[in-house]
């Protein structure tokens, strides 16, 4: 139970003894990431955000602790955690910053996962341990300038030649795109209006014709690398293709993994904002009393606490379903949509509670608020998930 004005180390939010529903190792995983964020990320994130820089120096430490692809098997150098523990990693990383969690999401759910799910044994044994160790950094090339919510319309092509696959196209809004050493590129091997010809390719970014270009001028996710990828006659060997991937379904499966992690991550961001709000309110004195003692701020805090608590239990069950193998993408849509939306509101309300101080980078809420606008939009916009749910319950597509 959080109480006002403790002003001390982040202790999460637990109003309903959520911890008692976690297994011991799930708590331990959560605690490890929380401690790492406190020690290594929090001291620098404000500056990174203002400077528009992803803290690359943190990658080895994250890798050493096993943050990348943590729910993939030990035989590939991964931690072999269950999905609830994986979710807790995302929660705690995003408590620090959505950009750092985005890095881990991409590396784990969008690069390591497809290699594990669709790759050959040779691809798995080569790439997965390196990605787990952080010696290779990955990015996921699906979205294009004109194909965001409608990825099956993509126009990046892969033409088969005697020497391999020739890839041409542009991808946009690609996290890690400029610093990645390897990319998973989704391209059509057949006609441009044939989504069933979509295949996935492992493309080292050093390949001739491949350029990653930072997208400048962001007001959100500033501590994250967001880039365009330009592929101009990029030639990769035949065995660069992921043998078991085919059609739009394959990249969507990856997105489901990432969206699952984001559902947890959003809770972390909301917790960070609530924690900041409640500590601030307990110490800030106005009209001879702490603002925590005013009705309007108490309503704010009660609303935030309620939304966070609801999201926690929703998402825990989602994780248990995933571990049981029965989780559906529509269930993930509900959680992503709800949790990110409530987190944007927590961040905004916390920002308002902080008053003028709330616009400074030394406080976290406005940074979370700006970041969460991206999280609201990416990995399926809020609106897209509304239609996914609508279709799921009515049987009728309104896309």
């Amino acid at each position, binding site marked *: 139970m959080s109480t006002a004005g403790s002003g001390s180390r982040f202790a999460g939010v637990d109003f309903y003894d959520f911890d008692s529903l976690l297994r011991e190792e799930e708590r331990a995983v959560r605690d*490890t990431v929380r401690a790492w964020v406190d020690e290594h990320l929090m001291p620098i994130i404000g500056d990174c955000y203002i400077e528009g820089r992803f803290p690359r120096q943190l990658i080895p430490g994250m890798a050493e602790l096993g943050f990348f692809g943590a729910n993939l098997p030990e035989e590939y150098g991964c931690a072999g955690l269950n999905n609830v523990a994986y979710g807790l990693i995302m929660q705690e990383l995003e408590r620090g910053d959505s950009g750092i969690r985005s890095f881990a999401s991409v590396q784990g759910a969008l690069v390591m996962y497809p290699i594990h799910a669709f790759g050959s044994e040779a691809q798995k044994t080569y790439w997965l341990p390196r990605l787990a160790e952080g010696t290779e950094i990955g990015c996921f090339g699906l979205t294009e300038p004109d194909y965001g919510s409608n990825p099956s319309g993509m126009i990046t092509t892969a033409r088969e030649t005697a020497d391999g696959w020739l890839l041409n196209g542009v991808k946009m809004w690609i996290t890690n795109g400029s610093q990645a050493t390897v990319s998973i590129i989704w391209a059509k091997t057949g006609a441009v209006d044939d989504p069933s010809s979509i295949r996935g390719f492992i493309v080292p970014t050093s390949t001739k014709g491949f350029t990653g270009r930072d997208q400048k001028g962001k007001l959100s996710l500033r501590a994250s690398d967001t880039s365009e990828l330009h592929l101009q006659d990029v030639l990769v060997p035949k065995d660069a293709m992921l043998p078991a991937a085919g059609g739009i379904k394959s990249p969507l499966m990856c997105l489901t993994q990432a969206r699952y992690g984001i559902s947890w991550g959003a809770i972390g961001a909301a917790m960070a904002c609530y924690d900041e709000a409640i500590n601030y309110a307990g110490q800030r004195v106005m009209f001879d009393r702490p603002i925590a003692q005013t009705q309007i701020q108490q309503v704010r805090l009660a609303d935030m606490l309620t939304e966070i608590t609801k999201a926690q239990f929703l998402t825990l069950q989602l994780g248990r379903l995933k571990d049981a193998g029965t989780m559906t993408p529509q269930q993930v849509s509900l959680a992503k949509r709800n949790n990110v939306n409530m987190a944007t509101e927590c961040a905004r309300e916390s920002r308002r509670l902080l008053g003028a101080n709330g616009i400074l980078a030394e406080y976290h809420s406005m940074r979370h608020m700006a970041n969460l606008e991206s999280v609201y939009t990416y990995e399926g916009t809020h609106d897209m998930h509304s239609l996914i749910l609508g279709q799921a319950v009515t049987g009728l597509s309104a896309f």
Partner: protein
Amino acid sequence: MKIAVLIKRVPDTELRFSIGGDGKSLDQAGLKYDMSDFDGYAAEVALRLKEAAGAGEVVVIGLGPDGVPEILRKALSMGADRAVHLTAAEVPVDGMSVATALAADLVGQGYDLILFGRQATDTGHGTVGAMTAARLGLPCVTAISQLNISGGTGTARRELEGATETVSFPLPAVLTIDEGIARARIPSLKGIMAAKKKPIETRPAQLGPVRLTVKSLELPPERSGGRIVGEGPDAVPELVRLLREEAKAL
């Protein structure tokens, strides 16, 4: 090298907590527990010694109720090899009673080093380590801030008021670890998974008679609210005046 590390489970001291209805214990609601800070340093020291030697065994031992194994598991996640849980419904605040139980379990186990934290972050007495050493008849050095082990001898540094002491001692020995020697490593996720398979033996603690008990707990008197004397360097003369005339500190 065979090293024992004694770990105490303590309430997380940075959280707000309140005194329970009985007036002599903490209200359990919402209380989180963790490994005492100095014990974490001791565990880290043990792990580094084992890693430097390339071989050895680090055994972590904790005394107390049901929540102790989870704390021992954290040490196993850091890399300790096995754990022992000495069960007791309550941990006496009497260090001698605890030292009696610990010595009974440590004796004859062939430990080269037995490490404690300098003091527990809850009771803050700092007595159990030296008392355990006395009961075992082993050499003991307390509050060390630097350590070197070579063959069967150790050298340690201790910080005194305004001075630093260098001490040498033979193994086997009991050491209590101070701040500054090592920071406890964050357990890796693989370490957490590996710890699930490491053994935790359980046996009842053979506590000695309890002769120190808590009669009551109180919150310290609140310091009366601070006074902002002023802003910027212009406030300095007034501050100096107050320090001299009102606080009589100058």
